[in-house]
């Protein structure tokens, strides 16, 4: 079962390695598509930008550009939608984006995509997986774009409600609208709590995975899940939030499994085969603990087809034979058919050993070796095959010689050369003597 899972992992990694130039843009395309669709569904005030064509075009742009472009275009699209409903709210949103970029996002540009992934996953309560994964692959600095994403997620419903309110363009109403928005943002304690809990989870996962004890990675994810659950439970007790505890615990565990799956694809370590070595050089004495990675190669199934070659010219004959005779019709390699080789082409009764279960990644096939071509002059006149001449012959006997070829047979073979002269074109022959056969 485990070997099957490891084989699937190797197979998927191989596919990704071969096709990552296509897979990475595809992933960016789908993420961008989901993000833009989510924005259109939530705050789709401007119908011009809600069409499939616009969404697809924006997603295509994001597919070919770096992932930061998804964040930029998502912010731009949200501003365009809100501007259609309320110019003032759009201006306020723009200022909030400037503050978020200046204070949070610019320090971790590579993880900026997190600020759009969190609102995307939060709808399904899967956003708890983000700090767990970030703790495994990044530094605690990635808590900043995480906080950014949470602020955007909690701000969107407030902005949507405010933008949908029809207000007159006078100072009193605009001021009242602004005060309502800020009050709602400041009253939303869960936004700040979630940001703090996520920062804590990232730090806990990061710190624990740095340790060198066994299964540190798995333990760090478990600790992150526990920290997440406890953090939100404490927040629920203190602020009486609307968090459903059962759903929180369940989704935290699910997100922990997702984070473990992500780590599983990154590396798999075999803790049962740890090696400890000590050595020194001129400057230091080293205590080294080496944990081998499990890299399973896929078993390769080679299919060998035995095809009847009767009537076909064997162009490789000249490479194998010691001589090649051209120009004399009496001596032709075409005279040899498959029967002369006496090879059984039926491979159905060949049992192949499959050691792939005992030795993962290793497969041993027994292959029938191709018969070596026999020179034409060795063909006997009584239609016995050349190989049958060796029936009963003891090949291990060092004193044995090829005396089964009688004198008559050698003379018959030699006579084939009698008609050849040096003037014959492209004639190459070797004058075989008795000693050549011993």
């Amino acid at each position, binding site marked *: 079962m485990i070997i099957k899972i490891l084989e699937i992992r190797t197979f998927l990694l191989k596919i990704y390695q071969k096709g990552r130039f296509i897979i990475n843009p595809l992933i960016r395309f789908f993420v961008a598509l989901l993000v833009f669709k989510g924005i259109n569904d939530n705050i789709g005030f401007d119908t011009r930008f809600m069409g499939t064509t616009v969404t697809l075009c924006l997603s295509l742009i994001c597919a070919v550009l770096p992932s930061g472009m998804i964040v930029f275009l998502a912010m731009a699209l949200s501003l365009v939608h809100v501007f259609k409903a309320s110019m003032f709210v759009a201006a306020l949103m723009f200022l909030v984006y400037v503050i978020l970029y200046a204070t949070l996002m*610019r*320090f971790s540009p590579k993880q900026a995509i997190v600020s759009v992934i969190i609102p995307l996953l939060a709808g399904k309560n899967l956003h708890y997986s983000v700090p767990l994964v970030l703790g495994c692959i990044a530094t605690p600095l990635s808590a900043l774009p995480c906080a950014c994403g949470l602020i955007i997620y909690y701000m969107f419903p407030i902005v949507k409600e405010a933008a949908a309110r029809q207000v007159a363009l006078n100072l009193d109403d605009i001021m009242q609208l*602004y005060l309502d928005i800020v009050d709602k943002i400041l009253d939303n304690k869960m936004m700040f709590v979630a940001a703090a809990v996520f920062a804590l989870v990232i730090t806990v996962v990061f710190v624990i995975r740095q340790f060198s004890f066994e299964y540190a990675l798995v333990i760090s994810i478990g600790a992150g899940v526990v920290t997440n659950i406890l953090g939100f439970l404490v927040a629920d007790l203190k602020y009486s939030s609307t968090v459903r505890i059962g759903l929180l615990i369940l989704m935290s565990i699910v997100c922990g499994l997702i984070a473990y799956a992500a780590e599983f694809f990154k590396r798999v370590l075999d803790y049962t085969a740890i090696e400890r070595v000590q050595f020194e050089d001129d400057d230091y004495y080293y205590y080294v603990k080496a944990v081998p990675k499990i890299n399973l190669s896929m078993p390769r199934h080679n299919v060998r087809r035995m095809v009847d070659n009767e009537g076909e010219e064997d162009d490789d004959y000249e490479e194998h034979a010691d001589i090649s005779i051209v120009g004399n019709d009496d001596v032709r390699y075409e005279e040899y058919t498959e029967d002369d080789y006496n090879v059984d082409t039926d491979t159905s009764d060949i049992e192949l050993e499959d050691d792939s279960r005992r030795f993962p990644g290793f497969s041993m096939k027994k292959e029938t070796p191709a018969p070596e071509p026999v020179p034409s002059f060795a063909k006997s006149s009584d239609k016995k095959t050349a190989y049958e001449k060796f029936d009963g012959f003891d090949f291990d006997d060092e004193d044995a010689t090829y005396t089964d070829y009688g004198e008559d047979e050698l003379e018959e073979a030699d006579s084939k050369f009698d008609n050849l002269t040096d003037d014959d074109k492209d004639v190459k022959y070797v004058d075989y003597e008795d000693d050549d056969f011993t």
Partner: protein
Amino acid sequence: MLNNRKVRIMTQLAIYEKKEGRPDFRLAKYYKMDYARFNALKTILWVTIAYIVGLILVAIYKLEYLLDNAMTIDYKALGWTVLGIYLGIITVYVIGSLVGYSIYYTLSRKKLGRYYKMLGRLRSMYKEEDEYK
């Protein structure tokens, strides 16, 4: 006749130059403290912009209070409060960015050091080939 070792080293060098090495080569033009201070200056600029924007938003939020008590507000104390908060935020961000960018610079130099080591090895291989010729 191909020298496999040389091809291997050159391939690793080319991969590094194309991907990871680009920001590292940009960093190599600076000294460590120059790079950290330059980025700290950029941080100060951006945090100042964010603080001014935030201050404007807070001022608008408290506009009613400010207008009602325009004559009685202690502007000196208010100014010192605003400045104090600004200095506090800037201090945190500057220290954080100095430490962070210094660590980033150190890690980048380690990778660059490995790159130059491989480059030196390649150079010695070329020298050996020239000596044989």
